[in-house]
């Protein structure tokens, strides 16, 4: 078997394009994934025109509230390109310099302030989007909508805080700042105490009964309005999110992305190499000569699987090593990495051998390997809940038959502690090794036939 392995490695060395692709492909994947996981998503460029006067403030009952820093909040989330006029904003959107333009009109704060009057207006901001690209347009719309929702929330919270202060003043009393000075507000609670103290001094009669009613009202109001404060707070954000993780821990996005890159590399390198190498034995007319007593069909299959595992292991480890430039990996778990890559590689190699034995011709094999591996890899990444239950069940069956998903699960679990158990996917892979080896062996019965 070792001489056949040596022969296959010699052939690989003699096929510069194939060898270069085998090395370049994972390097390229590693660089792309590395860049993706080490740098945050680029902020979309948005033209920003703020026509609101600098000293304009949202006010409550004539009192100006502290700034909610809406502009700052927006520009933290997008790359704001300052423009001087609406026309300039339109030009930039049309030219594609920016994805969209956000215009805060001059009367925005006035309109917001009018909400607390008898003639409320409708505060509006203007968003300019280039609709020529539907995907981009949709993404920008979503982003701007989310940004404005956050701005609305910030303003609402600020109003709620200020409203709460006034409510507190009414209940407990205190100083109300007015025009640089201040007015002392007695407050409902203090008023109730004073009234209660005055009550015994009044002669029994209708006046005392009326005072008692006012005292009771002040007491009740003071006590019950207390709950209005928290209510006002909640009004700004009535529904809070309480996230509970169910169904196991999910790996960090970086780890999962690295596992996907490693499994994709392992899958393509192994499946293509093994399937192509086996088909080459037939294309070179060597298979009948080899199996005429020199090598058994089982040994030949074993050699091909070993070739796929060896090359897949080297390339995948190299790729992981390359990724450490971008993000740290737990090299202390190298033993588990090896187990996952070796068994994942063996299952993928056995699947490649089955494909090679069935398709028989090198060109057909390459096409078949791509046609099988790529869709299965994509299907393996479809999360539950994103498609219908019935369709997801079908996807689960398909992805359980091909080794990509269990290999991905094993590698994900191996890369970092807490990413799920590794035992189950390894067992799954071991079963697939046997199943695909059997299929390959059966397919070899008709391998040499023309």
């Amino acid at each position, binding site marked *: 078997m070792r001489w056949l392995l040596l022969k296959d490695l010699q052939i690989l060395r003699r096929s510069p394009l194939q060898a270069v692709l085998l090395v370049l492909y994972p390097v390229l994947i590693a660089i792309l994934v590395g860049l993706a996981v080490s740098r945050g998503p680029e902020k979309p460029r948005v033209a920003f025109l703020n026509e609101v006067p600098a000293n304009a403030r949202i006010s409550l009952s004539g009192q100006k509230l502290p700034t909610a820093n809406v502009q700052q909040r927006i520009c933290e989330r997008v790359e704001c390109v300052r423009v001087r006029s609406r026309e300039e904003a339109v030009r930039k959107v049309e030219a594609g310099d920016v994805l969209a333009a956000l215009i805060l009109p001059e009367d925005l704060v006035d309109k917001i302030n009018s909400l607390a009057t008898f003639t409320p207006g409708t505060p509006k901001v203007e968003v300019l989007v280039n609709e020529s690209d539907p995907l981009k347009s949709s993404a920008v719309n979503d982003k701007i909508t989310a940004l404005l929702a956050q701005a609305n929330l910030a303003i609402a919270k600020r109003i709620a805080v200020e409203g709460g202060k006034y409510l507190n003043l009414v209940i407990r009393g205190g100083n109300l700042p007015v025009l640089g000075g201040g007015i002392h507000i007695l407050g409902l609670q203090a008023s109730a105490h004073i009234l209660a103290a005055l009550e015994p001094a009044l002669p029994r009669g209708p006046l005392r009964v009326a005072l008692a009613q006012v005292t009771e009202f002040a007491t009740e109001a003071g006590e019950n309005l207390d709950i209005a404060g928290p209510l006002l707070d909640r009004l700004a954000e009535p529904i809070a999110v309480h996230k509970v993780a169910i169904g196991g821990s999910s790996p960090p996005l970086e780890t999962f992305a690295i596992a996907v890159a490693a499994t994709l590399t392992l899958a393509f390198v192994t499946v293509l190499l093994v399937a192509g190498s086996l088909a080459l034995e037939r294309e070179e*007319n060597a298979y009948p*000569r080899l199996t005429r007593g020199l090598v058994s069909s089982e040994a030949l299959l074993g050699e091909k699987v070993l070739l796929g595992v060896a090359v897949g292991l080297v390339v995948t480890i190299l790729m992981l090593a390359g990724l450490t430039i971008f993000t740290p990996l737990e090299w202390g778990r190298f033993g588990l990495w090896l187990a996952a890559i070796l068994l994942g590689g063996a299952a993928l190699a056995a699947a490649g051998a089955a494909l090679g034995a069935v398709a028989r011709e090198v060109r057909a094999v390459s096409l078949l390997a791509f046609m099988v591996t790529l869709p299965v890899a994509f299907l393996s990444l479809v999360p539950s809940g994103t498609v219908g239950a019935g369709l997801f069940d079908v996807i689960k069956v398909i992805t359980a038959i091909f080794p990509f998903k269990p290999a991905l699960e094993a590698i994900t679990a191996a890369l970092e502690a807490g990413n799920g158990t590794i035992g189950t996917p390894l067992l799954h892979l071991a079963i697939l090794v046997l199943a695909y080896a059997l299929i390959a062996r059966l397919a070899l019965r008709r391998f040499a036939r023309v």
Partner: protein
Amino acid sequence: MAGGTTAALEARGLIKRYGGREALRGVSFAAAPGELVAVIGPNGAGKTTLLSILAGILGPDGGELALGAGAVGWVPQQAALYRRLTVEENLLLFARLEKHPDPRASVEEMLALSGLGERRDEIVARLSGGNQQRINIAIGLLARPSVLLLDEPSVGLDPRRRARLWEFVAGLAGRGTTVIFSTHDIQEAERYGDRLLVLADGEALFDGSAEELREAVRREAADGAAADRDFETAFVAYLHHRGH
């Protein structure tokens, strides 16, 4: 069997069926050590099937096959070589797979035998068809066979290379290797075969020398004069006489 000595190979009543079609119908023949046997016949006669059964690639559905001492070497019609390996790497691989005690010595021997010692480091894909066929045969000889089976070995070779190939094969036979080869080239069969085995529709029609076939045409065929023209004409007359 010519010579009447101990047979290197003997087939008795070989039958092979592909589905409902009988590719071989009770073919019997024997070959002596050092003998060159040409298997000839029209397309679909069963030549490749017969050689594949003799080589052990296919199993017969009936009949018996007796082999003398020593291995059977098989050289398929299309060169069974790794085209991206060098001449030497190909020979070394198969010598190792044959478990030769000194594979490198065997490689040197085969390089000398095939006359390709100077081209040992060349990638096989860059060699001419004739030289690829010589390596193909050399690999077949690595098993140290007492019987060498060649399936249409001269196909695609120009006359000069064909002549060199047959010189090489004749040398093997001269050293005691029984060579059984199939060919479409009737003149080649006449020139290099000690005996001819004529197959048609899976049946062995004739087993004897070229001169004996001419004699049979003279004796039996309606156009007996064909026997004295070129051998291909005599052969076609024989087939016609036998209803093929």
